[in-house]
């Protein structure tokens, strides 16, 4: 049988971002997949030398639109640890509230796109309608829908008052109520199961050996979540990672949907325990030394390395994003599947290419 090479992406109806895969096919079966990255490289790491460490917060937020708050959170933690700043407890809780809201809207966006990828358009629209409620909360509390710019070195910029917190609790109840029937549709509908169960299986050993991160890893049975490191206010919150054992697209889907409910609970708990106090501490001097820090993004483990030499500008900022870690597992999933399943599998790792290429 002669082999054919089919380019998948960078422009493809199913992809939100330009991922390019060269697929070698035998008949309709994928034999090999070769990725090509570099369509949206912007050189944001190099920009660190031209911006001072306070301005850099707004640069790292632009690495990824959909999880901007968590990028800034990770970078701020690095600089705060280098300078020995003690962030107020209220700021830590507010950061958790905003980052969990970001996780909810990122997962709902992905679930919608995933539903669209296997042709379930009404589910896609229903999920995005719920997502709009989360966006409204973010806009009312932080001032913008996606890039909310609330984190600064030493704390947060904005406060959430009591009335707004009550409003948020009511909204979260409504979101949960609207999501319950969609969850049962996603889990029990046979059209969803036909397209996802047993497709793109990643075994437990493979997932670990290939260094996957986030829901891909947890969908294969590893209970590993960076929130277990107890950064920010997670030390006071009840948290257990969501784990599924099948390792297929359906399991990854289930992990993400269950994480939405988990994040709603975390926000509720953080609002209940929210302490009074200052929002930020004053920053004096420049950071010096080098540090690494890890946080959990919606897509997995986000890793920052920052080196400063006592000047205004950081000397080096290195960002390792979860999608970068999840591309080798994707290439391991693809051989042996049908061409029609490739969009579903490619989307099941939640590819964020602008993160990967920075």
């Amino acid at each position: 049988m002669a082999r054919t090479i089919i380019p998948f992406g960078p422009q493809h109806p199913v992809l939100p971002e330009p991922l390019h895969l060269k697929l070698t096919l035998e008949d309709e079966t994928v034999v090999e997949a070769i990725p090509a990255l570099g369509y949206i490289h912007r050189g944001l790491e190099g920009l660190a030398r031209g911006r001072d460490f306070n301005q850099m917060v707004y640069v790292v937020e632009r690495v990824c639109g959909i999880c901007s708050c968590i990028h800034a959170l990770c970078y701020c933690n690095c600089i705060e640890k280098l300078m020995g700043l003690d962030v107020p407890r209220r700021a830590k809780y507010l950061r958790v509230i905003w980052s969990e809201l970001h996780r909810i809207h990122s997962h709902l966006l992905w679930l919608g796109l995933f539903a669209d990828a296997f042709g379930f358009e009404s589910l896609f629209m229903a999920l995005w309608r719920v997502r709009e409620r989360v966006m409204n909360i973010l806009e009312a509390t932080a001032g913008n829908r996606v890039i909310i710019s609330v984190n600064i070195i030493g704390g947060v910029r904005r406060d959430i008052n009591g009335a707004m917190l009550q409003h948020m609790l009511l909204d979260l109840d409504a979101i949960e109520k609207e999501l319950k029937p969609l969850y049962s549709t996603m889990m029990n509908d046979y059209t969803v199961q036909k397209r996802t169960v047993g497709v793109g299986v990643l075994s437990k050993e493979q997932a670990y050996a290939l260094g996957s991160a986030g829901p891909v890893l947890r969908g294969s049975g590893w209970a590993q979540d960076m929130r277990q490191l107890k950064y920010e206010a997670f030390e006071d919150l009840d948290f257990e990672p969501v784990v599924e054992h099948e390792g297929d697209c359906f399991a990854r889907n289930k992990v993400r949907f269950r994480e939405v409910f988990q994040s709603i609970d975390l926000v509720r708990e953080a609002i209940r325990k929210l302490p009074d106090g200052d929002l930020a501490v004053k920053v004096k001097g420049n950071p010096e030394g080098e540090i690494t820090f890890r946080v959990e993004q919606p897509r997995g483990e986000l890793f920052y390395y920052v080196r400063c030499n006592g000047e205004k500008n950081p000397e080096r900022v290195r960002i390792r994003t979860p999608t970068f870690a999840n591309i080798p597992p994707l290439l391991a999933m693809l051989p042996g599947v049908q061409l029609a399943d490739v969009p579903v599998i490619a989307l099941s790792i939640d590819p964020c290419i602008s993160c990967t290429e920075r």
Partner: protein
Amino acid sequence: MFMTKTILSNLLTKYATRMHPVEQRILPDGFRGRFKFAIDKCILCRQCVLKCPTKVIRIDPEVGLWEREVMGCLYCGVCADVCPTGCLTMTNVYRPPITEPAFLRFNVKPRPAKKKELSQEGEIKAAIEAKVAEKVEGGSRSGKVETMEEDAVISAAEAKAESPEGKKPEPAKKGKR
């Protein structure tokens, strides 16, 4: 059969979308929208220049120019946060997109000469006192605080740039980057 419930609930609930031009969205108070300038309050302290993440604000204290490249602005609101006199504030008015690079320029009263350039000590004292008095008055130099909205200013600036006798201190070309 299981679709009946969904169909009925959809028939009985309102649309999730809105008839946009007729029905406008109400933006929350904290929305980071259009800037509002009370430029008479500006003391050319350069705080906004130093803190701007995209470095699009430029100040020339000698001729009294405050300039921002509108397209480069992220609307992060840092300049409004750091402004000591409340010259720059953010409103919750929706900011429509613009289609070509534009500069937002203001003429501010130039800063008085630097301290070391004044010969007499008495003059320094007088200058400082004058400045303090000005701040106490509410930062107003000409007596009335002029507030302008961004789009009005952009069109005014453009009109000035086109008129031949416009007293613009910096004749930078529109669209220069």
